[in-house]
């Protein structure tokens, strides 16, 4: 953690810089990890619509994966997927 500042050194009113939440990697809250099967995916982008953390990575109109720095593993993407292209796997499988 950065060195803590005194009351004279911080902005008043509890204000902070904008967008500082990008530095807070919420991906480590995850218990289950979404795994994308690109062969099944029909690129309907419903997962992109429902993801609360903007963690569905889309390139040229195609889903290419998940941003695991911010994905909290809520499973909304897997639940909405009409072709079951996303499965939730226990995070423990990937922790070695």
């Amino acid at each position: 953690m950065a060195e803590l500042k005194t009351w004279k050194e911080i902005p008043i009113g509890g204000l902070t810089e904008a967008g500082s939440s990008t530095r807070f990697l919420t991906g480590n809250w995850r218990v289950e990890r979404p795994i994308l099967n690109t062969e099944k995916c029909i690129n309907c982008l419903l997962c992109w619509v429902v993801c609360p953390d903007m963690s569905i990575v889309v390139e040229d109109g195609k889903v290419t994966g998940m941003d695991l720095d911010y994905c909290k593993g809520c499973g909304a993407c897997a639940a909405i997927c009409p072709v079951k292209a996303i499965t939730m796997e226990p995070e423990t499988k990937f922790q070695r």
Partner: protein
Amino acid sequence: MIAEKTLVAITGAMASAHAMRQINPDVVAAYPITPQTPIMMNFTQFAADGLVDTEVVTVESEHSAMSACVGAAAAGARVMTATAANGLALMHEIVYIAASTRLPIVMSIANRALSGPINIHCDHSDTMAERDSGWIQIFCENAQEVYESTILAMKWAEKENVLLPVMVNQDGFIISHAVENVELLPDDVVKEFVGEHIPHAPLLDVEHPVTYGPLDLYDYYFEHKRQQIEAMKEAEKVFPQIAAELSEITGNEYDFIESYKLDDAEYAIVTLGSSAGTVKYVVDEMRGEGKKVGLLKIRVFRPFPVKRIAEALDGKKAVAVLDRSASFGAEAPIYSEVKSALYTVKERPILQSYVYGLGGRDFTPEHARTAFERLIKGEFFEGEGYLGLRE
């Protein structure tokens, strides 16, 4: 230079509304509640008539009213509102947030007793419940003071290094609904006095984005509270200058306190709000009888002018402190703070606490006279006395 004034016969509520009209705030969000309603009724008429540029937001509760005020002020708007009693109580959560977010909102309060039992008439239990919320609190004796204090409040709130919200208190019905002579300043003079609002960190300034209201835990919350304490000290420091600027225009005096025939007085009453006028009347009567009595009126309750009160009461023989609210299981608020302010003076007066006027019970000249006469006769008793209560 003293501005040319227009003499009108209006209520305290209308005096508030005229001050708001002349300040011309960007946003006013409010919800009706007795006895505040005529303040907003009159102001929204001005808005409907196109006399102001204000965006009037009619919300579904006082909690929403103060929330809308916070949002608008954070966006960079100059914001005002008004409420009373249970409305202020419903705002309570956001009242603290407005102060801690350092948003210079000005709110008129037509003081009314808090329920229950339900009562719509004047006492100070509503605003006294907010005394630690971080708002500046001004109390007015009459409609003229309401008008001028509202104008003064706007400038005070927005002062650099202060940036605190201000409550301008007027006694519900007694001031808010009573018609008095009031001298209004010309619109352009008020506009020039309050000046242009330059917001501190407006959310609408997209070139300089900031985050309002982030989580603030054990690592920084304490520091932010320390900043609020400093802001109140700063408010106390800059007030005389703003008061002097307004005095130049109106010819009237503004101070944290008003001393009425107090300098050579041996016995004094301390009070605030409309009862100060009643006490002045009794002081004049009793002076005519050769009694050395005087009044100390507290105009600014937050920041509490400790030194000024101590200086004004040092050496008096006996002082009665009147509260229009009770603190159940403790001393009444004004008494408690005046007593504390006198701890370090050289010659501490004997103090007597009186509670009066709860729920709109009349405060009459006889009550003030009773308090003075007991001081003079040396009739003191433990705990607080009650003026106007059937015992």
